[in-house]
């Protein structure tokens, strides 16, 4: 209802404005004025509006920042995320001053140099010196940003060293839910492929592969220990998905027919984060961030970060994949194997 | 409203003279980009696939290569002839080129037949990307070649009507540029499929 009311009002205002302006034009034409020429008075009004807009734009920017900055993602819950956040902040330090200065210049010049019949514009067609300055200065600034950025990028993209103490988790996207599989004690994920999908085995794990016996498959929620590197491997059963864990500054696409990977070290437990965000109901989430179908907007999984001990306890309470097989000798015959 | 005068009609002819070849050249650039899209797709697909099938190209494709090179040479001889106002030679050269062009298409069909009888199919469950790409690329080359054949037909009809002479042979030139391009494109695709894919 509110929307309808607003719409009708806006429509009426616009129609009447157009009518008034058009009538003004017609009457001007009848007086013999060249209507397409912008009068000096009109020009003055537009010049002032330039300044008004500048003020509006900056205040709008400030207002949004003040009103919404506390709604942004909380402090990074992963080790590399701290680096990402500080890179982000440094980038803002470059961007915001440039944004402000160029906008002041733009609208100030527009205001100051509005047309006056008795003034001449200055014929100033080029200056190698100036152009050199604004080629070199951005180049230098960019060099800093690129080097800083790539330094972070390389660190983030280096997989976990397999000899290091770590957790290996496979994330599987499918329309429209997530599954997670832990490598188990042998730190190896059993072979998996869509051809093995059958009943509850939605991840398509090949039960003939011995590495899969101790694998643990969970849905709805997965746990990770704090301060231990987590190596993720991503897969998809059907279309593209993207495993997006915004609180950890982590994202990687899930591509059917391909394995992708990402890793991070969680640093803040779910409990601590509830305190930081001042929100009892806070949960870390794994979201789907690549359009994947009708329920794309509702494809998520909770992530629980907890102490090593709690994690170990939770993990031991989960069912191992091997134990779900009715009879190990029949396991492989469920689906005709390929390759 | 103003009208176009006779003088402007001359301008039209002049515009055509000035722009026909550049239009074709830029068209060729876009065709090159079209095929390079696919040839780079082959490289990307091959790189990401451990089971890439290396396919032996059929003998007919080599034959096609020889045919198309011959046809280009012949056509070029026709161009040289008409520049010397030798209309008879042009007729002969263009008609033979046309025949060779059709032979090329026939030879390609034999090539596909050979591939097919070797169990290399374009689609379906027994196809692989390697086999699909071979058919796709060669078929689309032939589709582009059909445009060349149409232009050859036009040029041969016009040459039989003696429309060309040593001062007016733009049509022949345009047709020949495209034909040479098709030949060069085929040689590139042939070598690519043979040695890279």
């Amino acid at each position, binding site marked *: 209802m509110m929307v*309808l009311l*607003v719409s009708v009002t*806006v429509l009426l205002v616009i129609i009447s*404005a*157009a009518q008034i302006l058009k009538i003004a*034009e017609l009457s001007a034409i009848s007086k013999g004025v060249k*209507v397409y020429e*912008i009068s000096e008075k*009109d020009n003055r009004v537009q010049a002032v509006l330039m300044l008004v807009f500048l003020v509006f734009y900056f205040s*709008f920017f400030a207002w949004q920042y003040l009103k*919404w900055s506390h709604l*942004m993602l909380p402090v990074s819950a992963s080790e590399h995320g701290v680096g*990402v956040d500080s*890179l982000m902040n440094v*980038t803002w330090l*470059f*961007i915001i001053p440039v944004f402000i200065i160029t906008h002041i*210049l*733009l*609208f100030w010049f527009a205001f100051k*140099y509005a047309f006056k019949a008795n003034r*001449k*514009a200055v*014929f*100033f*067609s*080029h200056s190698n010196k100036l*152009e050199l300055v604004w080629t070199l200065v951005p*180049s230098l600034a960019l060099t800093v*940003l*690129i080097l800083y950025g*790539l330094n972070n*990028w390389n660190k983030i*993209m280096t997989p976990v060293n397999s000899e290091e103490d770590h957790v290996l988790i496979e994330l599987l996207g499918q329309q429209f839910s997530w599954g997670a599989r832990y490598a188990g004690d042998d730190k190896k994920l059993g072979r998996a492929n869509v051809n093995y999908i059958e009943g509850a085995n939605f991840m398509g794990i090949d039960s003939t592969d011995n590495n899969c016996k101790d694998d643990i498959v969970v849905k709805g929620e997965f746990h990770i220990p704090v301060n231990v590197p987590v190596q993720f491997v991503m897969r998809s059963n*059907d279309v*593209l998905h*993207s495993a*997006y864990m915004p609180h950890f500054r982590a*994202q990687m696409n899930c591509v*059917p*027919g*391909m394995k992708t990977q990402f890793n991070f070290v969680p640093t803040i437990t779910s409990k601590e984060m509830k305190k930081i965000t001042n929100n009892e109901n806070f949960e870390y989430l794994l979201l789907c961030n690549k359009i*994947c*179908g*009708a329920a*794309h907007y509702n494809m998520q999984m909770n992530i629980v970060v907890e102490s090593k001990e709690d994690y170990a306890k939770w993990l031991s309470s989960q069912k191992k994949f091997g134990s779900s097989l009715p009879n190990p000798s029949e396991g492989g015959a469920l689906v005709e194997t390929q390759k | *409203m103003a*009208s*176009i005068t006779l003088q402007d009609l001359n301008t039209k002819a002049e515009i055509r003279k*000035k*722009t026909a070849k550049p239009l074709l050249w*830029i068209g060729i650039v*876009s065709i090159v980009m*079209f095929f390079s*899209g696919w040839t780079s797709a082959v490289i990307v*697909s091959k790189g990401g696939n451990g089971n890439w099938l290396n396919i032996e190209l059929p003998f007919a494709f080599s034959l096609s290569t020889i045919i198309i090179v011959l046809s280009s040479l012949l056509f070029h001889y026709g161009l040289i002839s008409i520049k010397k106002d030798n209309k008879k030679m042009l007729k002969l050269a263009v008609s033979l080129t046309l025949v060779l062009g059709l032979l090329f298409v026939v030879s390609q069909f034999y090539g596909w037949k050979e591939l097919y009888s070797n169990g290399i199919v*374009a*689609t379906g*469950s027994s196809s692989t*990307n390697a086999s699909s790409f071979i058919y796709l690329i060669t078929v689309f080359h032939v589709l582009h070649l059909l445009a060349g054949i149409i232009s050859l037909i036009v040029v041969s009809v016009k040459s039989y009507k003696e429309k060309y002479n040593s001062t007016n042979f733009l049509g022949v030139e345009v047709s020949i540029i495209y034909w040479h391009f098709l030949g060069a494109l085929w040689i590139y695709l042939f070598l690519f499929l043979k040695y890279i894919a």
Partner: protein
Amino acid sequence: MSTHHHHDQDFLFKYVFSQDHKMISKQFLITGFIMGFIGLIMSTLFRLQLGWPGESFWIIDKLLGSWAENGVMAPDKYLALVTMHGTIMVFFLLTAGLSGTFSNLLIPLQIGARDMASGFLNMLSFWFFFLSSVIMLISLGVEGGAASAGWTIYPPLSALPQAIPGSGLGMTLWLVAMALFIVGSLLGSLNYIVTILNLRTKGMSMTRLPLTIWAFLLTAIIGVVSFPVLLSAALLLIFDRGFGTSFYLSDIYIGGQVLEHNGGSPILFEHLFWFLGHPEVYIVLLPALGITSEIISTMTRKPIFGYRAMIGSMVAIAFLSTIVWGHHMFVTGMNPFLGAVFTFTTLLIAIPSAVKVFNYLTTLWKGNIKFSPATLFSIGLVSTFISGGLTGLILGDSALDINVHDTYFVVGHFHIVMGLSAIFGMFAGVYHWFPKLFGRMMNNKIGQLHFWITIVCAYGIFFPMHFLGLAGVPRRYYTNSEFPLFDNLLDINVLISTFAIIIAFGQLLFLYNFVFSALRGPKAPQNPWDSNSLEWTAPVEHIHGNWYGDIPEVYRWPYDYSKVDENGEYIGGKDFIPQTTPLYDNETDEAH
């Protein structure tokens, strides 16, 4: 090709199958605007859903019918609307509508040519585009709905009707329409390039070309290089969808069964798509930049600052645009080293862009600015180009992209830098060259009002999206109130949607002004803006061949505004010297 050179050519050949570049230009403009308005309405509809999720709206009920039960659109139809909005805006409004209109109108007129190199190809170019538009619109009405896989149509989603209903007939028609569109666009580009390179009038050297022409030339070149690759990508998708090949598909389990497709990779599609997709950004943007360069110079009564640097930066942007596509794919699992290379090339684009911005600013400095609606939109473009371009530094940086990739931050960024800049450039161009298009003047006051409503609402829509993105809201979500994480962001969505409704109505001002002025506006004088460039020496009425008698000869660059002699008096007595004026005795041609 026969040309029709009679006064009394019948209606069909004058208005429909015209080979005259000015008529084709108008055809592009009007078709583009119709498509644009449809795209705008779509966006308003899905903004209603995002602002007030799940609420029933009369208008949605009426317009969407079976797509929206009880006035609430279905989730997959939301995606269909988003997809079609993107496709229509990017390709139909901002590629064909913008480039098609102004390249056609201005290239022959500004370089001094009778018409395009090939009027016939030019006509074909429009008709391919028109047919493509019609098919795209028809696809809205087919069973399963229109294409719904996002405008980037990533397979497998776009390849499998089992994955989303829109990937059935709707997607087939989408692909057919795009194939026709590409052919039309290529035919146009061929013509633009050859005309510019071969048909310039006497004296019109490349360094005397207006910047508009340089922009159109580079746009056409990028088009010729990148559109064919999209065609080859689309063909592979067509084969995957209909003929059982597996170029993009592998290991898929959907609808309870494993598909036969094996060995392909969706990443291949992404590479091919973005090899066009990124240059496409500049296909959209460069013409707008060219148009505003011309307008800002004319309306500030100053030469454009750094003419050669402007050309140089456009060339650099055009070149770089073809080697940065990977920045759309940082999180697809690409080789990290490749990611680093793409970061580097991407951020390099900031340099020529910065040069352009500072050159615009310097052009305004000490000018004598007349605020026509075209000037306002041009200044608006500089603002959006800065505001949107700067956040590109974040998205282009692979490490930062990880967390904002595919969020509303991206939506805000590209709508401002590409969407707004391009549409502002298009509006500026329409206001400025309306007298050339229709021989009449538009109403300035309504135009100015249109500008202020548009820019305020546009920032009101897209600026807050950055905050949504930084809060981690993914794009293409039907609603973000499904789980509690984003609950407190609903206010932002309400604000955005409110602005979206106002801006949609605001465009009615333009529509009214456009239609009314085209039919009844005051008659245009020959050179209403006291401009130097060649198109204003042509008669107001449209004639075949553009000029009575000989084509004028050119003696100088187009930016001799407010040129003074040593006594500070205007050379030639006025604050502008048209390109057709020979050099005066006391004058040197060292301006650029």
